[in-house]
């Protein structure tokens, strides 16, 4: 968080979520980077969340040393780019010749830039000749795409972020906006301050987004359709239907009829809660319904989306300032991927794969030898086909399906058994990269050049501020190289991303003429210089219009120009709870990590907030299953198992548990949550039901628990471990059910410290061993073993690595070296205890006062609810006295 204002600065876009915040990057010339929010970017106006603020910790040495791929690798051995690319081209060519194009598949990612994505889609659909390209957006956005298409005729986000500033009511459905899209949440909270915007959260779980909300509806998992059907029925019975607007819609009566037939009691909410929600929604014309993974990741995800869209269409509350349904995406370029058609059921520029005219138009534009006539395999089906040997050549780009797909263990087996697997990534350390026959080093964020589209259709540039590391190449370049080596030289001879962008823009103009929404033909004539300078631009961009909202006056993209209200009916989640699996597992994200942590785990500040995988369970369930706080819990489902740390909280309801989804084989192998999730998908969108697995829980019978800190990366060998970065090295939680053995010998192997001096503390009767390894008077590593969850001051210990080892084995701070406590504010690295000391010493009583004293909470603001909770807890005993 240095002030980089003196350094040369380049505008770019944050690589994390779909908010798409503008950043100002100032390279220090030594591989480091100062990152600040771009005050001129319309998404964030200069603000950044904890993840964006700490991007500086994820570049340069932190990213490159020991982590980045330096050269292509073929069968594990370093190889030249020529060798690797020729092999990829030969094997795909051979697979097409022997088994047909449908034996090939690409599995790509919302982290690809639009230009990369465009080339990938063009290569596989137009030249290899199969629609088997799918993306991790399938796990994220597919239900929204399906819902949008069913209602609007195309995948259009009608509104803009300004609607969040101008709404009188914001409803968050299945969205922990405070943690997953913090900058948007800050905009909503600012509107609350400024204009009294009301906030309703609809989520089975109490989240940070509930702090400051006016209402939290803790509905039963997967019951959203029933709730919004009730709302639609009330809209009808209250005469709240906007009759004038209905000339732009079709299907209202059938939708209302289906809604009335549904039963809102399945939500588990009281009639009073439901009525209060309906009253507020119906009574507030400026209402934005924000929805995210809680809606999408469901076997009824598309229906949930349509149930929400129905309400906005029925009331005409769409496309006007402060009103509309609003999907917020999880990935930086999920929207760009949708635009180029990087999904198995799309073509390009929102054109339809089943439409012969559309196919012909795209084929002509690409001058492509072939074009698939049917949809390809969506993610879950794709990996099943891999497992069944139907797909024989698979290219995975910038995503980690070996942990992020449902039934991840089966996915790992499928990839391991595939004839030919290519992985493009920045690192070879992902769970997926381990299975690659060919591993290709890709350029990383800040090295790459291209565009991304955020959740409100704003196209922003990601710009190069540092050269690609070692032998890394841009993804479009790698894909184009393979295209040329497969014989399609003209189609893949791009001079740079600007040329690809122009080709894409021209195609979008063709799509526009075919009646589609995504038309950026106004940018088709951009020179390379103008492309370099391109300021954030909301699509569409045509001669006729630029940006703005959609559908205030109809203009839908169905054949008849009308929107479709769909009759939808609640369905329960696919997996049923049963005595063997009595609990419903919800999954999600935490504040300071992103996806499978391949970048955020490099940041010590981000890793400090919640440094191990956990399971939230209600006190009643904890009692029922004899689980105490900080115990480890063995979680089993029909598809897999995990070991997680127990957090006992009333945030979840009885019978429901929650686990975050970030941990991997590299950070916590037993915490891979998608091993537990069955591969049931939405019948329309193909999106897996990631938030409604069924599980059993039992206390993990640990014979010992451990905590360790170390300077170098340790190589743990236990049944449970979770590794996190610290400023000085690493911290590690451990546990095992095996016999103790010789801890000193075991630790020397784990830390690779065969000769370091050791100090030890042993209480054999209690199973307690503590070891500190030091060299030249500096602490190299320390291991704390106990029969119970280890009680030591972890953050303090982490701060002692590389320091004088004296007193370390006490495991706690002393008066002259106070404990900062767990980091609460990740932007400024301020710990809980530091805040509490300041609160006590200076009698601070407000979150703002804490901010003035310690800066905590003054950047992204996402820790402000937690600071408020600390202040509330601090006040309670004082009043009692």
């Amino acid at each position, binding site marked *: 968080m240095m002030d980089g204002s003196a350094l040369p600065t380049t505008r770019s876009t944050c690589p994390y979520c779909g908010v798409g915040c503008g950043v100002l990057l100032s390279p220090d010339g030594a591989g480091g980077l100062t990152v600040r929010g771009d005050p001129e970017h319309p998404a964030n106006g200069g603000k950044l969340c904890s993840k964006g603020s700490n991007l500086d910790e994820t570049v340069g040495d932190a990213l490159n040393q020991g982590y980045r791929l330096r050269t292509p690798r073929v069968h594990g051995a370093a190889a030249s780019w020529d060798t690797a690319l020729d092999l990829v081209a030969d094997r795909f060519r051979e697979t097409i010749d022997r088994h047909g194009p449908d034996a090939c598949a690409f599995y790509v990612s919302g982290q690809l830039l639009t230009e990369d994505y465009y080339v990938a889609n063009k290569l596989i659909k137009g030249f290899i000749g199969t629609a088997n390209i799918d993306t991790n957006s399938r796990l994220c956005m597919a239900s929204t795409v399906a819902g949008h298409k069913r209602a609007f005729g195309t995948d259009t986000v009608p509104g803009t972020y300004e609607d969040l500033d101008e709404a009188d009511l914001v409803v968050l459905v299945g969205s922990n906006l405070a943690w997953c899209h913090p900058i948007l949440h800050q905009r909503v909270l600012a509107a609350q301050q400024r204009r009294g915007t009301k906030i309703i959260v609809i989520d089975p779980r109490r989240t940070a987004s509930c702090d400051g909300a006016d209402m939290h509806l803790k509905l039963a998992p997967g019951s959203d359709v029933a709730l919004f059907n009730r709302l639609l029925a009330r809209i009808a019975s209250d005469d709240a239907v906007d009759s004038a607007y209905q000339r732009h819609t079709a299907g209202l009566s059938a939708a209302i009829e289906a809604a009335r037939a549904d039963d809102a009691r399945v939500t588990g909410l009281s009639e009073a809660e439901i009525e209060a929600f309906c009253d507020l929604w119906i009574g507030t014309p400026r209402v934005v319904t924000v929805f995210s993974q809680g809606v999408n990741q469901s076997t009824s995800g598309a229906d949930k989306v349509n149930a929400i869209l129905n309400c906005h269409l029925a009331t005409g509350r769409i496309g006007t300032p402060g009103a509309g349904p609003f999907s917020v995406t999880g990935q930086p370029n999920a929207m760009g991927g949708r635009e180029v058609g990087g999904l198995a059921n799309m073509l390009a520029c929102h054109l339809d794969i089943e439409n012969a005219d559309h196919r012909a138009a795209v084929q002509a534009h690409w001058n492509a030898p072939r074009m698939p006539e049917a949809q390809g395999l969506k993610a879950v089906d794709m990996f099943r086909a891999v497992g069944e040997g139907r797909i024989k050549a698979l290219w995975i780009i910038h995503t980690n399906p070996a942990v992020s797909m449902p039934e991840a263990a089966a996915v790992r087996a499928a990839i391991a058994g595939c004839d030919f697997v290519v992985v493009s990534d920045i690192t070879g350390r992902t769970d997926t990269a381990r299975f690659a026959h060919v591993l290709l080093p890709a350029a990383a964020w800040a090295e790459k050049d291209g565009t991304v589209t955020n959740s409100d259709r704003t196209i922003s540039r990601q710009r190069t501020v540092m050269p690609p590391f070692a032998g890394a190449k841009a993804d479009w370049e790698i894909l184009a190289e393979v295209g040329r080596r497969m014989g399609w030289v003209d189609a893949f001879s791009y001079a740079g991303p600007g040329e690809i962008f122009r080709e894409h823009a021209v195609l979008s103009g063709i799509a526009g003429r075919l009646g589609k929404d995504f038309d950026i033909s106004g940018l088709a004539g951009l020179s390379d210089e103008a492309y370099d300078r391109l300021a954030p631009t909301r699509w569409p961009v045509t001669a006729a219009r630029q940006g703005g909202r959609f559908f205030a006056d109809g203009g839908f993209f169905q054949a008849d120009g009308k929107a479709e209200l769909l009759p939808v009916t609640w369905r329960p989640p696919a997996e049923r709870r049963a005595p063997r699996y009595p609990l419903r597992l919800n999954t999600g994200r935490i504040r300071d990590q992103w996806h499978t942590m391949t970048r955020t785990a490099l940041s010590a500040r981000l890793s400090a907030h919640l440094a*191990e995988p956990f399971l939230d369970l209600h006190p009643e369930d904890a009692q029922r299953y004899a689980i105490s706080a900080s115990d480890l819990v063995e979680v089993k489902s029909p598809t897999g198992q995990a070991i997680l740390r127990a957090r006992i909280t009333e945030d979840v309801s009885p019978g429901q548990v929650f686990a975050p989804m970030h941990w991997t084989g590299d950070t916590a192998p037993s915490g891979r949550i998608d091993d537990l999730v069955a591969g049931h998908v939405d019948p329309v969108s193909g999106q897996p039901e990631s938030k409604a697995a069924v599980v059993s829980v039992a206390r993990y019978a640990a014979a010992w628990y451990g905590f360790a800190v170390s300077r170098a990366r340790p190589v743990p060998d236990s049944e449970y471990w979770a590794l996190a970065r610290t400023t000085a090295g690493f911290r590690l939680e451990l546990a095992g059910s095996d016999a103790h053995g010789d801890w000193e010998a075991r630790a020397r192997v784990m830390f690779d410290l065969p000769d370091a*001096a050791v100090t030890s503390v042993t*209480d*054999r*009767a209690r199973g307690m061993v503590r070891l500190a390894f030091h060299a030249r008077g500096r602490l190299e590593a320390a291991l704390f073993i106990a029969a119970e969850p280890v*009680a030591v001051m972890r953050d303090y210990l982490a701060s002692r690595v590389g320091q004088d080892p004296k007193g370390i084995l*006490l495991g706690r701070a*002393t008066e002259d070296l106070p404990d900062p406590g*767990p980091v609460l504010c990740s932007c400024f690295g301020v710990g*809980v205890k530091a805040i509490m000391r300041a609160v006590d010493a200076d009698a601070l009583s407000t979150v703002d006062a804490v901010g003035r004293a310690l800066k905590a909470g003054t950047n992204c603001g996402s820790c402000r609810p937690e600071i408020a909770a600390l202040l509330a807890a601090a006040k309670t005993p004082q009043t009692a006295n």
Partner: protein
Amino acid sequence: MTRLVIIGAGMAAGRLLEHLMAEAAPYDITLFNAEPRGTYNRLMLSPVLAGETTYEKIVTHDEAWYATHGITTRLGERVTHIDRKARIVHGENGPVPYDRLVIATGSMPFMIPLPGHDLPGVIPYRDLEDTEQMMALSPGREAVVIGGGLLGLEAAAGMAARGVRVTVVHLMDHLMERQLDAEAAALLKSSLEARGIRILLGAHSEAIEGQDRVEALRLKDGRCIPCDLLCMAVGIRPATQLASEAGLDVARGIVVDDHLRTSDPSIFALGECTEHRGALFGLVAPLYDQARALADTLLGRPSAFVQRSLATKLKVTGCDLFSAGDFAEADGREDLLFHDRAGGTYKRLILEGDRLVGAVIYGDTADGAWYFDLIQSGADVSGLRATLLFGPAHEPVPMPRCSLAA
């Protein structure tokens, strides 16, 4: 006034006199001492030997002090016998009648009766004269110490500090086996060796060789260690001769009850010459307890001497070791260990149930007194178990048990 005669001016007798003077006890006191001086702090002989202090600085009671307090002294005069019937103590220079008598004759160093043990240059380590003999050795001369206990090692270290080349010959396989466990003893051995002291463990002495004076110690394995001085520090025996000859009950020491009374109600015994409930005494702490109890008895107050756990500190600069209580392994006992081989620090605390019963510390003995208090008070330490090894300044505080914040 009641006549009180005290035989011996060791540290226990010195402490007894302090108590009696402080309480203005109504006694007419006569003090005999075979050594031609009053009380000095015998524990400090090793620092004197090591050159860290001087004899003058360790004297606690001199002629002037006795004069001030009206105590008659017969210093440098041996007592020849006690006439219990007549209640008279006979000194070399004449008799002194008593109403009450305190025998505080201390102990005699034990000399192993090896061939040659009576050669000049073969000495115990007991008093100032022994110390002065050791101090007289010039640098580069050679000395052998038989006995790797507390006293022997202090003698060895003191001489080594003066540049004498010292070999310690010890029968057992680790040093100070009565106070240290093997681990602590190994650390101590390394530290002593680092100062140039040679240490032979499991070494059986066979004979002391020399014509007119000690020249070498021969071991049973045939090794021969040349030396200019041989110090035997293998233990002490209570000095009971006067008491035996007076017909008092004597076992290994002079038998006393909880009031320090011997089998003769007018005669008391104090210090290393006593045997109380079957136990002998060699460390100063219980002797001070005896002095307190005996003062109470003589003052006509209820009194009782209770044996308590013992603590030992080795007075060798740079070899900080501390041992207290009972550290033998036994059923129901649990150990807490701290070990820093490179730093030369070792701690072993022995728990029995919820109580601390023993402590062995090498290297950083700052918390020794605190452990000793816990051992003596028998306090419940179960709540301190997690931090006990790290000393007293650590009140229990709630600590996180996993890596999930707040």
